[in-house]
């Protein structure tokens, strides 16, 4: 059983991190998301980290890699629910989550994704398959 279940709703994959992840779990999540993006043709990933109490440089890097890799697979990523204490720590640690879009909560994250899907439709970018 993967430690982070991935659900598919419409064009969006939703992954909720539910516990303190080992390094290999984080990597497994990244690989599972990429595989699921390819399989489903989903156009967005919503990554909920609201119960995650510790984001160190490793997990931060994996979040960034998920966002960058998803983009290569034609999908947007939004990380939602970063705790205020985690935000302070990441800033002091000096970790830049380049290319990672964030939102306060899942609802706002979904709105962000919907807007990205709409923009692509208007521009005529073929979304998914």
């Amino acid at each position: 059983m993967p430690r982070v279940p991935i659900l598919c709703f419409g064009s969006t994959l939703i992954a909720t991190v539910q516990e303190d992840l080992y390094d290999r779990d984080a990597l497994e999540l990244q690989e599972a998301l990429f595989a699921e993006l390819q399989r489903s043709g989903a156009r967005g990933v919503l990554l909920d980290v609201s119960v995650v109490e510790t984001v160190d440089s490793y997990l931060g890097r994996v979040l960034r890699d998920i966002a960058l890799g998803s983009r290569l697979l034609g999908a947007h990523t939004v990380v939602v629910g970063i705790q205020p204490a985690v935000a302070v720590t990441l800033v002091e640690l000096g970790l830049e989550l380049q290319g990672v879009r964030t939102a306060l909560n899942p609802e706002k994250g979904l709105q962000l994704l919907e807007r990205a899907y709409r923009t692509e439709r208007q521009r005529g970018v073929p979304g998914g398959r």
Partner: protein
Amino acid sequence: MGCPVVAELQLPITGESDIVAARQAAREAAKRLGFGMVDQSRIATAVSELTRNVVRYATDGRGRVVIRELLEPSRKPGIEIVVADDGPGIADVTEAMREGVTSGSGLGMGLPGTRRLMDEMEIDSAPGHGTTVSIRKWQR
């Protein structure tokens, strides 16, 4: 330091799962000492960075963590964490502390990032003699 130690917890580092065990133990100790959420996060993250260095770079990824809850009558409570290994050691500690310097596969924010999360940090290391990093944080 000469501070009275109220509680001391020793944990071995033998692999990746001990990174999580060590940072959770440090967070629990910080919570017991009355540190707030932000400091708990800083402390747990610093411990995570240091123990990962051991798992990645020390010989066989082995080392040890000691978590001490410090109480001194003249000041507020503090926490001290010592992460030690018998690995290859750091040849130039000053260089390792410089911003933007990473070693190995470039994992981790290196030692400067960890230093910023804590109040005090000391590194004792020499080639062939392992590395001992001590970090401390005091309640404000």
